């Protein structure tokens, strides 16, 4: 049957054309990923086992020396402890406050559009620039906040070891509560109305229907907001680095700041790469889990 052969040929040619097009269209991505993703990943992992420094990238293998010195110094453990504690507190606060704000904004009221826009502004500001603005606001001599506190008879040294951590918590909450708010608000908007009407019909009060209807249905969205914030809180760098550079002492040194300082202040590339590798290995088990969570809710939140 010449017809069938002809058809098979066209289909094969078609498939060939598609494969060729797919390769052509992906080529820029393949090249970019090879140079800027795969190579850095591999070289970063290799550097962790080398005695490499800022001044001398000699590439001499030194086994697990970097890891030994990393775990011997208490800087890494302290930074890890601070990062985890700081992240846990800010994320918890941001979830609760973001949810409350989403509930407020989920109603119709005068001026809502304007306030919605204003509420989202902090997310758009560069954390480093926000850090600069906070230095202005909190400055002991000319800052508005210390002046305000003094005028009501409080004199607190905001950057002292005792108050610096709560201060940074407040600042993080100010910037990122709008983010959890946005995600949860989008989720609230997608709630089917019937659900609430049904629970109202059953005579449920506000908080009752909130906790037994809204929260369970919203759970995937809440998880997404939680994970996204948790991941970002764990890699916090900009605001804290601009404000305190990890100090006083090492009180506010996050893992990111620790790795940065190890590499570019102490100049120990090997140890910094080792620390980065340890952090990476600790995070990787969570990645597939989080990706699944987010990709299943992301679609929902978009409707």
């Amino acid at each position, binding site marked *: 049957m010449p017809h069938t052969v002809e058809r098979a040929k066209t289909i094969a040619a078609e498939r060939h*054309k*598609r494969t060729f*097009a*797919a*390769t052509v269209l992906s080529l*820029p991505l393949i090249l*970019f990923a090879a140079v*800027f*993703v795969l190579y*850095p*990943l591999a070289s*970063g992992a290799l*550097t962790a086992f080398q005695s*490499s420094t800022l001044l001398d*990238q000699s590439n001499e293998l030194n086994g697990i020396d970097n890891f030994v010195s990393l775990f011997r110094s208490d800087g890494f453990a302290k930074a890890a402890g601070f990062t985890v504690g700081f992240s846990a507190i800010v994320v918890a606060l941001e979830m609760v406050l973001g949810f409350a704000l989403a509930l407020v904004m989920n*109603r119709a*009221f*005068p*001026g*809502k*559009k304007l*306030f919605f*826009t204003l*509420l*989202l502004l902090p997310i*758009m*500001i*560069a954390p*480093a620039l926000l850090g*600069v*603005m906070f*230095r*202005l606001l909190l400055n002991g001599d000319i800052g508005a906040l210390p*002046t305000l506190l003094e005028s009501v008879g409080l004199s607190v040294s905001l950057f002292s070891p005792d108050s610096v951590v709560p201060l940074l918590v407040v600042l993080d909450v*100010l*910037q990122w*509560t709008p983010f959890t708010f*946005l995600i949860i608000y*989008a989720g609230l*908007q997608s709630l089917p109305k019937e659900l*609430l009407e049904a629970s*109202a*019909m059953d005579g449920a009060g*506000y908080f009752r*229907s909130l906790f037994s209807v809204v929260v369970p249905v919203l759970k995937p969205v809440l998880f997404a907001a939680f994970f996204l914030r948790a991941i970002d809180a764990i*890699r916090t*760098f*900009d605001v804290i680095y601009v404000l305190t550079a990890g100090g006083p002492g090492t009180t506010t040194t996050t*893992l*990111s700041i620790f*790795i*940065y300082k190890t590499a570019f202040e102490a100049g120990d*590339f090997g140890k910094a790469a080792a620390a*980065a590798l340890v952090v990476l290995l600790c*995070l990787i088990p*969570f990645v597939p889990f989080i990706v699944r969570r*987010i*990709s299943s809710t992301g679609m929902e*939140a*978009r409707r």
Partner: protein
Amino acid sequence: MSTTTVRPSTASIRPRATRKPAASGRKWLFTALAGVVALIVNVPLLNAALVSFKPDGEIAKNPLAPPASPTLDHYANVLYASGYDFPRFFLNSALIAIGTVLVVLVIAIPATYAIVRLGFGGRWIISSASGLRLLPAIFFVVPFFILFSTLGLQDTIQGLIAANAFLNLPLAIILLSSALGDIPQEIEEAAAVDGASIYRTLGSIVLPLLAPTVVAVAVLVFIFSWNDYLFALVLSTSNATPVTLGAANFITSTGIRWGDISAASVLSTLPPLLFAVFAQRYLVSGLSSGAVKG
């Protein structure tokens, strides 16, 4: 905001049965509440804006008062006074952000089409893109520093564009692939039957349909690249310094010129803020759909 994502709500949590006309007074309570929160989260920006209009003498005397005799001197200083590199920092940021947007779109759009429609590489590419998005940038700082020294990309605009493209490509691929998944494939098949090539179909049929997502990606990538600090800190020394680094530098290098610092930080914040406000409906859908931010 009239958007498909965030509609002004008529359905509130409050069960309908208990909502009485008496609640109209309570509406204003919510206005007040939202207003107060919006004010509090924007205090640093507002404060910087106020200080930037105060003459030097006023800044130190009464930090709490609004400017009594507003001045534009600080803005003039920052923009024109010699000794400040601010205009160059600003230009660098603009070049880096715009360059990153272009590079990301040029790489991500065809690749996403190949992945989603032509079956290139399979789903794992999307998954690893999402995974990559979640890893801390700090892991890549040392390898990038070494790589950039080798390639001669240290302290160049191109180098920072590459670094920012690296940070933002995963987001672009995630957002574009989910949008592409929503477009019915029959349209493309019809085009193919009519004899359009794959490239033609992508260019004249798929791209226009993807336009809203492309805008969302462009705006987000612009903002994230403009806001980058870590890679700029490591990969730029003087030639390619962007405003995030430059404005922070004002503090240590010139110490006490608070008015100028305020003006610089306000100016540096404007482009992403303006973008965010004007493209809000795209932005909100972008942020809440891929739900992955920088």
